[in-house]
């Protein structure tokens, strides 16, 4: 999911940086003091998820967990993700500094979708589980589509990479859907307050 330095055209980098900066600024304005620990914990969770690798044919992909983070944090997910991506870029070479904006956009905006799916009212237990599955599945799918589109917009030479990046994330979409479903069911039972804290 992380696009490395020196790959993308300046126009894409600038556009991503501008949109992400605005979103992070709005998120910082909305952020309350008492919400900061929760945002910090999910930033750490997002950071660690990148180290859990899933083999996908000739390559390997990693967990993202942007769906569940977005479901709980709402727009504040931009702050969580940008901090985690910054450190991944600086210390591990995952992504980069110039690509921070576009990477944040590709990961955090779909996470917001996770929040809106989470807020959909449902009638019964089965529908709730399906909803929770999609809280994990859809944001990752969208992130993979955004990533693929970003690469495709970069030029014809990246079309193959765009297709591979989309296809290789298909297993992650389903795994994340399942993990998110179980995680949200668990949180609902043991710590329901966390699902209602941020509005």
């Amino acid at each position, binding site marked *: 999911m992380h696009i490395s330095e020196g790959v993308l055209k300046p126009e894409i980098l600038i556009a991503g940086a501008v949109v992400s900066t605005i979103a992070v600024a709005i998120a910082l304005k909305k952020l309350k003091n008492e919400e900061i620990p929760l945002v910090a914990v999910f930033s750490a969770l997002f950071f660690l998820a990148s180290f859990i690798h899933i083999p996908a044919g000739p390559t390997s992909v990693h967990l993202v967990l942007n769906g569940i983070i977005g479901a709980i944090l709402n727009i504040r997910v931009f702050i969580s993700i940008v901090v985690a991506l910054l*450190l991944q870029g600086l*210390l591990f070479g995952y992504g980069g500094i110039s690509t921070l904006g576009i990477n944040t956009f590709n990961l955090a905006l779909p996470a917001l979708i996770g929040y809106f799916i989470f807020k959909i009212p449902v009638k019964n237990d089965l529908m709730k589980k399906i909803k929770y599955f999609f809280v994990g599945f859809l944001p990752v799918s969208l992130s993979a589509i955004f990533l693929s589109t970003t690469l495709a917009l970069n030029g014809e030479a990246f079309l193959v990479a765009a297709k591979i990046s989309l296809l290789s994330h298909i297993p992650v979409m389903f795994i994340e859907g399942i993990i998110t479903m179980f995680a949200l069911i668990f949180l609902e039972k043991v710590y329901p307050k966390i699902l209602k804290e941020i509005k």
Partner: protein
Amino acid sequence: MKIITLLLICLSFLQAHKLYLMADDDGDKLYVKSYFTKSSMCQDCKVNIYDTNNKLLYTQNTDKKGRVTFPYTHKEVNIEVIASMGHKNQISYEGENEIKAEQKVEENESYTKILFSLLIIFSIFFLLKLVKK
């Protein structure tokens, strides 16, 4: 005919005194075994381990079972065994396994970086909390 038979018998004795040398590794240790025959181990024989530039890395004597263990720090080494009465053998050994010590150092460095990063994440949010106050 008698001379040929006698010569063959003498040759077989020479074979019996040939010094065999075997080596294996598990990524962590290099195992060396030396023997004359399957029932005659090379006991208390000197084993030298050299790197590819013939620099002596380790030296140790075999035990009663003709075995000796060394740290596995180089993938390609030359192993020399020197027994009594001038018996000697040497082989070039290339390990199949990656050196675990190097892998461990890389893993440890990775874990350290992860912990350091988590510390920085929480520090950033702690500073943000102070600013927001």
